[in-house]
């Protein structure tokens, strides 16, 4: 494959960023917006071409029918040593092609959607510039040929996420949310970096082709190396996973994601639902051949994922800000993907249940991107209509916004796992993989799936049903403009049909095509649970009734903890402010000012004092000097006498 198109895929968004960033202020809003859309549209077309060529072109199928990993181009960017080289390249394989499609699709839709949603906002051009920067960084991340390129993309998406969350920079909450997002993910990136250091130090390579193409050789390089009772490989992989935990908002590094909803809603759809937050999943999937060799690491992933999934689902049940509900739902769904990846491994290089989890995870990543983007964009349309994030301000909007209503419902059904919507298929594969790995995890995840259906329909009813508010001064909620509706309808359509894609043919852990078989027992259980959950939600929230209040009264503590997100934010505040800020930074600053600097000043003071003391001898009185002179002369004479006498 010629490198022209791949280079263009990366270059166009970067160019758009520079163009809009440097000259955007001179352009009109319309021009900037359409330029952004045009750039992203071109990228979309090119990415689709590339993905099509990859999956259907036939050039990338190996002798056994497996899909090949192909490095389209790879240029040295920075050579540390002969072996440790950071290259900038473009790697095409089944998951990166998939991600190309997902990223460009969602990104283009968001570009389009923003034309309507962001209309008239101050800094419209800047917004498009940042979107382009984000698209570039995310594409750079997914097509990385080596782990350091991925890290670079990783940092860049973090920065663009920072800029976009803080888009409304005059708002305190947005500024602190962006800061929080950046710092938390930075902390996670530290783990990632250390993981890279350990990994590259041992294997002497950054290259994915070498790391994942030949995992046994790398595992041999790690053989026998342990650190604090755990093998070094496990350490490296867990550290790398830490990076993924940060970006993908796993417990306990999830706290930034709900706050990140301060950003404009399309941004939440793009970055904090569909693309960037699944980077952690992508990372683990990318390194999957290595993760297969460390059962400890994959177990760690499963445990973290399972806890996060449950936690986020619980919390989502008690939020009133619709974007936060969606954010927690995102956390929970990403945790699903993580668990799925974890349960695909059985350690020692063996996969569990034909590596179904890997495929399922990628499948869910794909479907989730679509329906979660749909939900977020729907939420955006609602917010656009009522100018508030709280469902308390909404109620009964189905009459005013029919399109949004239907598409949102489709999204809810998809995420709840009701056939034939896409979520059903992907989630079912995950369930099958979980049950195959360990029944406990299977049951656990089923419960989480039930919770998911419950909170989504709670949200749905609270927004669209109930009795509408009185309309004041003609502020009638209105349906969104066309540029916003097109993405909604498109994504809804995709969410309806995406489940029927034979996904196993495109993505599997060993790149061999694989046929998906629905396990009807598990599917039946899942659907039943989902339906029951929806029914409960319907009973409780279909109309305004005292049931929710009763439930709340029944378990006040639980509700409180869920409402306050289990006080994680408070804990973090305590750690950062009380311990790190007041316990470390301030004492250090004090120490520096008073001890270190004090020592220096004390030396100066002593010198000064001493010189003042000596200066007193120079009284300026001539007669005094004469006396001193005389005494000196006498002493000298005395010495002379002594010398003569002795």
């Amino acid at each position, binding site marked *: 494959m010629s490198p022209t198109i791949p280079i263009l895929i990366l270059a166009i968004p970067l160019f758009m960023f520079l163009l809009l960033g440097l000259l955007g202020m001179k352009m009109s809003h319309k021009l900037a917006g359409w330029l952004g859309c045009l750039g992203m549209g071109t990228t979309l077309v090119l990415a689709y071409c590339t993905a099509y060529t990859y999956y259907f072109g036939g050039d990338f199928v190996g002798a056994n029918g497996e899909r090949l990993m192909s490095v389209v181009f790879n240029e*040295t*960017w*920075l*050579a*540390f*040593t002969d072996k*440790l080289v*950071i290259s900038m390249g473009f790697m095409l394989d089944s998951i990166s092609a998939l991600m190309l499609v997902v990223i460009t699709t969602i990104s283009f839709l968001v570009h389009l959607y923003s034309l309507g949603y962001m209309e008239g906002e101050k800094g419209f051009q800047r917004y498009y510039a940042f979107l382009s920067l984000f698209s570039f960084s995310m594409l750079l991340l997914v097509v990385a040929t080596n782990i*350091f390129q991925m*890290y*670079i*993309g990783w*940092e*860049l998406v973090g*920065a663009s996420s*920072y800029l976009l969350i*803080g888009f409304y*920079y*005059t*708002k*305190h909450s*947005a*500024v*602190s949310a*962006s*800061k929080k997002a*950046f*710092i938390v993910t*930075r*902390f996670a*990136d*530290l783990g990632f*970096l*250390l993981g890279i*250091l*350990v990994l*590259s*130090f041992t294997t002497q390579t950054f290259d994915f082709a070498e790391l994942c193409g030949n995992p046994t050789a790398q595992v041999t390089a790690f053989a026998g190396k342990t650190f604090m009772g755990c093998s070094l490989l496990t350490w490296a992989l867990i550290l790398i996973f830490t990076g993924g935990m940060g970006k993908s908002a796993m417990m306990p590094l999830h706290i930034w994601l709900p706050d990140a909803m301060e950003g404009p809603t399309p941004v939440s759809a793009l970055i904090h639902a569909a693309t960037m937050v699944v980077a952690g999943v992508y990372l683990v999937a990318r390194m999957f051949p290595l993760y297969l060799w460390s059962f400890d690491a994959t177990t760690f992933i499963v445990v973290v994922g399972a806890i996060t999934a449950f936690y986020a689902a619980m919390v989502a049940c008690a939020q009133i800000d619709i974007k936060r509900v969606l954010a927690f739902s995102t956390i929970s769904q990403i945790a699903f993907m993580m668990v799925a990846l974890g349960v695909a491994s059985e350690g020692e290089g063996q996969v569990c249940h034909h590596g179904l989890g890997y495929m399922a995870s990628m499948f869910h990543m794909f479907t989730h991107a679509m329906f979660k983007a749909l939900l977020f964009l729907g939420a955006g349309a609602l917010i656009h209509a009522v100018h508030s994030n709280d469902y308390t301000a909404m109620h009964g909007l189905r009459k005013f916004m029919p399109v949004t209503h239907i598409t949102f419902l489709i999204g809810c059904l998809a995420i709840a796992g009701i056939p034939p919507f896409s979520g059903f298929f992907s989630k079912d594969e995950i369930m099958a993989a979980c049950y195959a790995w360990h029944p406990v995890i299977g049951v656990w995840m089923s419960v989480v799936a039930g919770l998911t259906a419950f909170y989504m329909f709670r949200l749905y009813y609270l927004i669209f049903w109930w009795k509408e508010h009185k309309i004041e001064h003609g502020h009638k909620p209105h349906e969104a403009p066309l540029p916003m509706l097109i993405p909604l309808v498109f994504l809804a359509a995709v969410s309806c049909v995406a489940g029927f894609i034979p996904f196993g043919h495109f993505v599997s852990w060993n790149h061999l095509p694989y046929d998906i078989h629905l396990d009807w027992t598990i599917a039946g259980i899942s659907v039943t649970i989902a339906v029951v959950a929806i029914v409960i939600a319907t009973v409780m929230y279909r109309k305004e009734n005292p049931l929710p209040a009763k439930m709340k009264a029944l378990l006040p503590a639980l509700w409180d903890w869920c409402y306050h997100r289990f006080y994680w934010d408070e804990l973090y505040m305590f750690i950062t402010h009380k311990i*790190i*800020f007041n316990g*470390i*930074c*301030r004492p*250090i*600053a004090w120490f*520096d000012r008073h001890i*270190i*600097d004090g*020592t*220096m*000043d004390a030396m*100066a003071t002593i010198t000064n004092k001493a010189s003042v003391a000596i200066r007193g001898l120079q009284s300026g009185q001539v007669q005094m000097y004469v006396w001193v002179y005389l005494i000196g002369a006498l002493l000298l004479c005395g010495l002379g006498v002594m010398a003569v006498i002795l």
Partner: protein
Amino acid sequence: MLFSNPLIYFVVIPLLMLAGLSLCKNIKQIRAVAVIGSIGLLALSTVLLVKYLAMPPINGDHQMAWEGSWQWFPQLNICLSVGVDGISLAMLLLSSIIVFAGSFASWTINQPKEFFLWLILLSTGVFGFFISTDLFTMFMFYEVALIPMYLLIGVWGSGRKEYSAMKLTLMLMGGSAFLMLGLIGIYYNSSVDGQHTWNLLEIARNHAITPEWQRLLFPLTFVGFGVLGAMFPFHTWSPDGHASAPTAVSMLHAGVLMKLGGYGCFRVAIYLMPEAAHELGWIFLVLTGISVVYGAFSACVQTDLKYINAYSSVSHCGLVLFAILMYNQTAMTGAIMQMLSHGLMTALFFALIGMIYGRTHTRDIREMGGMMQIMPYLSVCYVIAGMASLGLPGLSGFVAEMTIFVGSFAHTDTFHRVFVIIACCSIVITAVYILRVVGKLLFGPVHNEHHRQLTDATWWERLSTATLIICVAAIGCFPNFFANLIKPTFVEEIFKVFQYNS
């Protein structure tokens, strides 16, 4: 011939500028002299860089180029010896860029004639230092660079300027007292046959300093240069000094002068005394490791913009010395890259802080806010500088830090690697204090309504900052060019050290 050596012009041009300045009558002429001179220096260093890269490497390595030596005090073998390799060239380029940007940053200074006289004298010292290969001449230029700082801060500074100027000068002088001892010690141990020499390259070739002497002289030289490199616990001149210094002086001081410390540690302490560096390196590793984290933590709670940046410099410069002490090629390349990177971005920071201070007349972040709405250009530049500082890929900080970390982690000793992990933590803390400042200073609502009347950057300020940003981005986007420029020249030098490493 003296004047046929192009390196001499790094000293001659500033001297000509001094002469030109003394003839100037008004501010226009002064600006013209400063701008023309700094463009001349910039052009000279660029041309030399291009020529250097075009030179055919000998045995696969680039050698010292344009070597020359003229005796000026025969009784003590003191020569004006010059010669550059990739590292010194990179430093010269850095210095000329910062002098160029600094001239524009001090476009409207009071008493411009005197100011530029001292500033250019200072840069004479800096350039002289980087081209010298004779220890004594090097030391002489080092002193030339230090002294004008006192007046520049004392006269044109702000805040507690007398105190800061005195403190800075005295501490650096204290450092150079150590250094002087160390250098004299090196001189008297420089050769086996009693023919002492000050020439760096000869001393390295002779390799005659016995390990016992090295153990004595290495700490002296390392601390001597380390004071200028803001090594813990000799860093306290930096916050006060930078806080009081005028913009261009802060830029030049943090951007170039602090690099003299790192460069000296590398060129003199490590290069000439590898055995002692290997033996005693751990002490300084601990100190520099502390600098890295300590500076970052201190920066988190400062409220004065310049203090924040000064502590951040302590942290970043600590990383330079830290990497030097790892004595392996990648880490040392990283150290030099970090010098370049830190030089540029800290100069950018100080330039911006100076410009903001010039408008708001306060540097306290608690008294400012929402600058993004008032002066968007400066604010965007500040964000870029901040991003460079916290190591965003595509800007210089990232490549330098990563090179250091990857290189340092390759050290075989666990003790060293544990310290690398500790140093890595600084990237998080850096993010904390940078974002704290950016959040408080630039974002949020406008804190003081009077600030709404303030204007955005003027053309000279734009030129000054844009130059620096372009350089920061250039290093960040094409790091391999710089890495190769720096790297080959000290492969052979390092190999000597390597023997002690394995």
